[in-house]
């Protein structure tokens, strides 16, 4: 370890202290370290100088904390829990974060940081997404990962988690920016995604590792998601949704925004369609996106999903496939749709066809609901 590295480690120790003083947030920390002052200098600062910068209450907290905080012990504890602390002066601190307004003062990292040499795409979208959104999140996550692109997202329910999981299962890397501490798996349902991220990517947060999830912590993390990516891809979003907050931040940071078009009758596609109207890029397929933005001719990325066994359908089956949708529908809804096409079929017959198609894995049955896979 060079002397420089040692100094840097030491500085991290002090920065970690500074971020854990009550009443000191990233803005105050930045104020204290302005003008080339290091965190160590802050630790050694005289009370008079500190009082010039801080409010009396904040000063009291700092003075108090300087008395009791055990620098080495606390920092060693963090390392023991496999959490890295990277302040903005650290060479590993992502370059992309330096350039944004309101950059975080430091990051806590579990796993690894995104590789700055590789392209990265943020895939974001609704938590309560439709089957269409699910399918696209999967497809884009997988195909972009295949092309060597890192997927950045927020590990949330729905689009976020699905795209990240798909990317990692395809052998790619993915990074999640959390709205809670990195030791928290939120939402708990995404435990499997969390474990995968730990191994095939990283979990990032600007909050201390044991911070519990709180609603007001989530919107600020969105700026980090968009900042870490070259491009933000919106899969599905309602109007006025959190996803669109991320898009606003991406535009502020100068990131490119792409959206996937949807049917104008689907409320979950309103956000995307509006974005396209406002001039966002249109992502028609993973291959299309790769070529459009990165200029990559992805041979292995499928331009259109191939549908196995589709040729072996008899006429009735193909009518049924037509009325089926990627969204869940019940038998009576399907029967009504068939009737509108002037094809009358009894409940029993329709059930028979549907179950047969399910057995052939052409459609998916969930209780009394059915949907297409593609």
């Amino acid at each position, binding site marked *: 370890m060079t002397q420089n590295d040692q100094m840097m480690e030491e500085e991290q120790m002090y920065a970690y202290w500074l971020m854990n003083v009550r009443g000191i947030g990233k803005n105050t920390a930045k104020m204290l370290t302005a003008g080339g002052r290091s965190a160590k200098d802050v630790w050694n600062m005289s009370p008079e100088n500190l009082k010039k910068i801080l409010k009396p209450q904040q000063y009291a907290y700092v003075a108090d904390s300087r008395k009791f905080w055990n620098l080495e012990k606390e920092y060693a504890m963090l390392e023991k829990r496999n959490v890295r602390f990277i302040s903005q002066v650290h060479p590993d601190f992502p370059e992309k974060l330096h350039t944004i307004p309101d950059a975080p003062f430091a990051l806590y990292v579990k796993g690894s940081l995104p590789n700055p040499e590789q392209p990265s795409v943020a895939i974001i979208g609704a938590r309560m997404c439709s089957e269409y959104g699910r399918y696209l999140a999967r497809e884009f996550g997988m195909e972009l990962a295949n092309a060597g692109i890192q997927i950045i997202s927020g590990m949330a329910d729905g689009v976020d988690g699905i795209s990240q999981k798909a990317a990692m299962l395809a052998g790619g890397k993915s990074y999640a920016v959390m709205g809670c501490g990195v030791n928290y798996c939120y939402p708990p*349902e995404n435990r499997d995604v969390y474990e995968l991220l730990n191994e095939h990517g990283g979990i990032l947060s600007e909050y201390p590792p044991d911070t519990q999830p709180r609603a007001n912590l989530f919107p600020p993390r969105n700026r980090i998601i968009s900042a870490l990516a070259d491009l933000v891809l919106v899969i599905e979003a309602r109007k006025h949704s959190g996803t669109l907050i991320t898009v606003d931040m991406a535009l502020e940071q100068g990131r490119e925004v792409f959206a996937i078009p949807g049917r104008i009758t689907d409320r979950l596609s309103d956000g995307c369609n509006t974005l396209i109207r406002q001039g966002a890029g249109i992502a028609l397929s993973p291959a299309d996106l790769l070529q459009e933005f990165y200029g990559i001719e992805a041979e292995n990325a499928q331009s259109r999903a191939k549908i196995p066994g589709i040729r072996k359908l008899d006429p009735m089956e193909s009518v049924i496939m037509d009325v089926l949708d990627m969204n869940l529908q019940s038998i009576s809804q399907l029967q009504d749709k068939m009737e509108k096409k002037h094809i009358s079929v009894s409940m029993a017959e329709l059930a028979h066809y549907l179950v047969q198609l399910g057995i052939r894995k052409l459609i998916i049955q969930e209780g009394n609901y059915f949907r297409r896979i593609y």
Partner: protein
Amino acid sequence: MFSTVISGAIHGITSYLMHVEVDAADGLPAFNMVGLPSAEVREAGERVKVALKNSGIRIPPMHITVNLSPADIRKEGVAVDLPVALGILLSMGEIAENALLDTMVIGELGLDGEVKGVKGVLPIVQEAQRKGCKTCILPLVNAREGAVVQNIRIIGVKSLQEAITFLQANSVEQDQMIAPTKVSISDIFSEAVQEYTLDFAEVNGQAAAKRAVEIAAAGFHHVLMMGPPGSGKSMIAKRIPTILPPLTLSESLEVSAIYSVAGLLKSDEALITRRPFMNPHHSITDTALVGGGRIPQPGIISLAHRGVLFLDEMAEFHRPTLDLMRQPLEDRSVHIARNGGTFSYPAEFMLVGALNPCPCGYYPDRNRCRCTPREIAKYLGHISGPILDRIDLCVEVPGIAVEELGITQARNESSSLISTRVRQAREKQRIRFQGTGLRFNSDMGPQDIQKYCRLGIREKRMLEQIFHSMNLSARAYHRIIKVARTIADLDGAAQISEMHLTEASCYRLADTQYGKENQRNAGEIV
């Protein structure tokens, strides 16, 4: 002098005859009641004294002792007023000694001597007839109820005075005074020619739900309907009694006895002739649902005996309350143990549940539903697994478009048409299960399924495929076969075919439908 009058009381829904013994002797004037009377029975003494006075009879100052035998059963209710009064008159010699021979008496007295109606007349009169009584003196309002029991003379009286005059007369005069109440059972049944005001023809659309309900009615399966608010779940449920076969006489007597005990039999209806339909509000208490109380009373599940118990907004019910139905659903009766004894009420009902698929009610329509997977899982979690396990059919009732509501009824099947098919399917089951103790397909256990639901090689392979492609549990397996058996019965088929199996497999709750939304789809790399 000592006298004894036969009366009766109810214990659960069974009844026993009780002897009211009265002794009027010289001594300090007193009125004592023994034989484990409860507070309201003990008060009978005061009512009787005043009622006698107001009927123009003076009781001389005597030491009167009343014993209710058998003395070891706690006496509840107010049915002993009239027998006590008559017992006193008998011991005083106002009424001839043999006037109350083989006569069972029940009734409550008002202070003016009016005879008021009591609960449980039907089972008590049945018991009296079994024990060889020839005459019953009942409150007039209960006379028709008692007259359902044949081969026994039913005398309905309005007042104590009337009862006394009646008993003082000879047999010829008696017949002129009060004609015995007679009820023709066949008339009752033909009067109530099942004229329901509701009909399935009024339900537009919802083919799947209607079909599921038909299957449920045919095989006496429990059924769960899921759908957004206003999709017609309650509308369909309320029409289920119209497609069930009419009550038989023995069924009607069973149901009437329960209603009689609960005091719910109206004076103008001698018997319950229609299938009960109970739809309790979800705020119902434990006791009201399964029965009980200090003096045990039948609960809603017993009042729904041989009929339909409809639980609307099932997920809103208090979960422990719903769980109380686990044992009754299994045993088809409910046993209630209290320190006064153990009571058993029949509870063989068809459970019809209705619930929204999620808190907002619109899942899986993601254009409207914004419930999180957690919320959805929690919502359905209000109904415990053991209850869901007993429900063989689950059907989706989707929201209906406004334009479809205006369609004329001509296309819809009427209740009577569906009812005919249901009756045919039930007849098949009756023949199949003759002498086995089973009544319906839904009663079959795994062994019965082996015996009565033989599958062909093709059908077996098909079921295996369904099993694998849908990742079913062993329970779901048996449920599908049972439902398929009923579908085959409706079809008039002796053997279960592939069609029957595939249809049956569409009426079930998805194991993956709730709670695991994310995992399922994130892992589903196709």
